[in-house]
């Protein structure tokens, strides 16, 4: 595959998947088997509620409007993909431009909403997506065309080191896979095993939760603590705020305050 065609294929694949899955996220609300997604309805209801528009009709209508625009975006990229597969570069570029322009318009609309609703983080997020779209168009229009490499004397498979890289890649993949497998085997028990506590002050026990832990571990930990300390009653459970964690190394700190029965 020519370099420019590979980059075009990557761009089309990325943005088609992006908008296709955004539409699916609207069609499949809530959490289901094989789909988690984001609850945009709740987000919109809260946004409009903060404006004083508590009737869910506003959020529903706004979300339906956004979904329609996202579906339009997806269709434009899909049309560009079809023309890419047909090797009709002129039509592909026309559809891609329409897709990118529609996407930029949608992110501009989102950014207006972010300003109105005062969500500065989402404003940054949407601003960055908007810029990536703009830059993607510039790359498509001026970056790829005319920069094709002169046909190399020999295919890459015959360049120096190619076979070595294939062998090293296979060995590296096996090494990484073995390590992943071993780590998974060694730590998977953390999914439900109770955490062992350490008494850090008189009647105060500290629990350092692993990254794999979830609510089941919390429940198992409390049950195990009660079973192993029958002479103590739990007064209070304190969740250590993130400031108490060593950066990145600790998932969650929990303190149980007790007193003798």
């Amino acid at each position, binding site marked *: 595959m020519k370099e420019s065609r590979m980059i075009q294929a990557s761009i089309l694949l990325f943005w088609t998947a992006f908008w296709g899955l955004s539409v699916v996220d609207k069609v499949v609300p809530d959490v289901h088997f094989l789909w988690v997604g984001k609850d945009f309805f709740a987000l919109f209801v809260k946004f409009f509620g903060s404006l004083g528009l508590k009737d869910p009709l506003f959020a529903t209508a706004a979300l339906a409007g956004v979904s329609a625009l996202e579906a339009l975006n997806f269709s434009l990229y899909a049309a560009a993909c079809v023309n890419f597969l047909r090797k009709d570069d002129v039509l592909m570029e026309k559809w891609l431009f329409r897709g990118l322009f529609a996407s930029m318009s949608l992110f501009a609309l989102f950014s207006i909403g972010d300003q109105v609703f005062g969500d500065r983080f989402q404003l940054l997020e949407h601003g960055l997506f908007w810029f990536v779209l703009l830059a993607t168009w510039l790359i498509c229009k001026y970056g790829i065309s005319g920069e094709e490499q002169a046909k190399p004397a020999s295919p890459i498979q015959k360049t120096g080191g190619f076979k070595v890289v294939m062998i090293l890649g296979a060995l590296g993949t096996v090494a990484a896979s073995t390590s992943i497998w071993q780590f998974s085997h060694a730590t998977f028990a953390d999914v439900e095993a109770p955490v062992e506590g350490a008494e850090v002050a008189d009647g105060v026990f500290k629990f350092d939760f692993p990254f794999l832990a979830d609510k089941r571990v919390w429940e198992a930990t409390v049950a195990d603590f009660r079973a192993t300390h029958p002479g103590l009653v739990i007064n209070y459970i304190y969740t250590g705020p993130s400031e108490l964690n060593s950066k990145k*190394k600790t998932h969650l700190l929990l303190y149980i305050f007790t007193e003798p029965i």
Partner: protein
Amino acid sequence: MRKTDFLNASTAHLIRFGILIYWSIFWLFNVVDKVIGGAHFLWVGRDRFAQFQKYFASAGLEAPIIADASLVVAAALEVFAFLFFAGALAHFWRKNAGVARSWMAIGTGLTLLTFTIFSIGDHIFGDRFELLEHTLFWFSSIGSWVVFVHLERQGEDRITSIPRHQMVRTGLVSIGIAVATTVSIFQYNTDFFYRRTAALSAERVDADLYKVTFPFLGGSTVFEETLVKFLEEHPTKTVDHIYTVPKPLRLKKADALIFYIATKEKP
């Protein structure tokens, strides 16, 4: 004719070299992170198994083999991306610019494919922050590819030499600032590192209510030492509950963690 040694290299040549170095190191350390797994002495990294396991469990796939298989696919893409960028770097160093470009094209293709797959996962698992992160990396990969191929034509723009007196002045100013900051940092370390572990005093603010203000260096050790000290200083009291002041109630950036200890008399 382009030179590989830095003193005679063009600015374009150095930037292209920097792009290959960046992506080689980027993927090398991602592979190392997969191979090491977990936090160790001198390596924290990220527990990708826990992250993937939680993602798939949230979608109803709790068997660890799913997370393992996904991580293996990701690791394979990363290993080959690293090797192709490293190969491109080696060919570039040997002045095989055309071959280096072909190798980088494969590395870039693998990078784009990896981030596209990750972005699809972010949609499915509803992680919008990671979606933004992966989109930015995806774009950085395309952007660096475009810069790399465009700079191929810019070989004649050699680094111009800087007048000696400007070099000397800049060097002296840099050394002066470096010395001042180094002294300040070491002084701060000498004066205040005890805050990393030392127990804090609780200030009584109301009947049975005490306030503890953390320094920025404080962590779990300070919290625990503070509790020990508090219980020793107030032997007749027991902790009823602890209230952590939420971030919106703290002064922007000036306040670290603040918590209140609510107590009651021991029975």
